[in-house]
């Protein structure tokens, strides 16, 4: 079990993502890095960041940190409070509906993201494959 969020969880997530054929298929034309931002809330006491360099269906590099300045500047940011991340990973929130209902915030080219909603769905499905301890 990997604790979320942590370096160990990020590594396991990337390994699962890179072996997920559905994600590779859905994201084969995707080019762009994204940072998943876990905001502190009543259940988790500090912000955490998972940087993912995503390219043509694979994650080429990743980095976990509690300090954003230690990470490259991403083209996209998907951020939300810890409790909502827990619900997302447990498949209780749809990643796009999560933005539309204000549970998550997305920064970056919205037009591009809207062409890759299936890839977003597969990214969340992959997260739920990681044996996660909250």
């Amino acid at each position, binding site marked *: 079990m990997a604790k979320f969020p942590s370096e160990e969880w990020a590594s396991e997530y990337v390994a699962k993502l890179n072996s997920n054929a559905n994600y590779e298929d859905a994201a084969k034309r995707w080019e762009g890095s994204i940072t998943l931002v876990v905001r502190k809330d009543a259940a988790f006491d500090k912000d955490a960041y998972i940087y993912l360099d995503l390219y043509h269906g694979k994650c080429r590099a990743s980095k976990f940190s509690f300090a954003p300045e230690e990470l490259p500047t991403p083209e996209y940011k998907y951020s939300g409070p810890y409790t909502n991340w827990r619900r997302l990973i447990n498949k209780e929130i749809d990643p*796009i509906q999560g933005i539309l209902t204000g549970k998550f915030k997305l920064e970056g080219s919205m037009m591009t993201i809207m062409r890759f909603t299936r890839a977003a769905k597969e990214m969340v499905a992959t997260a739920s494959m990681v044996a996660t301890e909250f």
Partner: protein
Amino acid sequence: MWFFRAPTIIFGEEALSYLASLPIRKAVIVTDRHLRETETPQKVRQALPEGSQSLVVGDIDDEPNLEQMTHHLDAIRTFEPDWFIGVGGGSSIDTAKILFFLYERPDLTVYDATPLVNLGLRKKSRLIAIPTTSGTGSECSWAAVLTETTAKRKHELASPEIIPDYAVLDPDMVISLPAEQTKNTAVDAITHAIEGYVSNWRNPFSDAFSEKGLELILGSLPGVLAEPTNRKLRANVHIGASMAGLSFSNSQIGLAHALGHALGARFKLPHGKTVGIFLPLVVEFNSPVCGDRYARLNALFPEAYRAESLAGSVRNLFRAMGQASTVSEAGVGRAEYFAGLEELVSSASESTGLATNPRDAGTTELRELLTRAYGGHG
């Protein structure tokens, strides 16, 4: 948490007369080339409040691209309207939505209209949709489709802020709709009702509008085709189509629309015709994960068309209506179709309909469905 969003809907006989009660000072009336020469735009102008001014944008093509949609934007900005009125089928209403958006936010491009951002519209104007077809659902939806001519694909714009303020469903506006358009747009509406009912984002509101919308359409469409000037039956189909629009607008489209948009953009086929080709195939594809829901909809089909499965019932109905059941029947040549197959796969795979379709479809499944849709031996 989720939402149910809808315009204020004015429906029934003389619904158009409601326009006179609105505080309209300057209206842009957006309509298409076919309607421009008819009495329809004049009817709308006459229904406006006394003393109001209007500017008619009347050269919208079927399946318009962005340039066609926006080349009157400078004249519109000079006119300074306080209302936009889309009069026509989906192309006219979608164009009205896009002109409304660009007039409100000249600092943005049309591609900024996504549901993920707050656009802050309605600072200068408001939006009315008056459909003259029964099927697109655009009068009730948060979507606008534009054709990207160069890329031969359709772009789906969406924002809750482009849902019209008012949808006017007056049966008088559809009473003379030609048979071919009546059929194609009804097929589109049936597809909306069915796809909205099984979408991953379905909810009790969209369920209710799908069921009632489908019931109204199926109960009255054969009668409309037999007796096109029957106002009561026309009104039922018109209202049913808007209800189907409310369903999918609040739960999203699925795979039949993803594939239909790809096919329609590449081969310039009417939207209703393309989604109708794919609907039975998609119902069969999705059945393993939502067969119980399809069974509920199947029970709504009139006995004359009802088969054991929903896909069979849909095929029976569409066949009776004379709709093309394959891409081949729609007139696309085999060599031309299969030469562009990978582009069709690619275009469909980037539709938002894939994320909300109840069964996951990757490029392998899309290719298979597109191949089967051609008919014959693929």
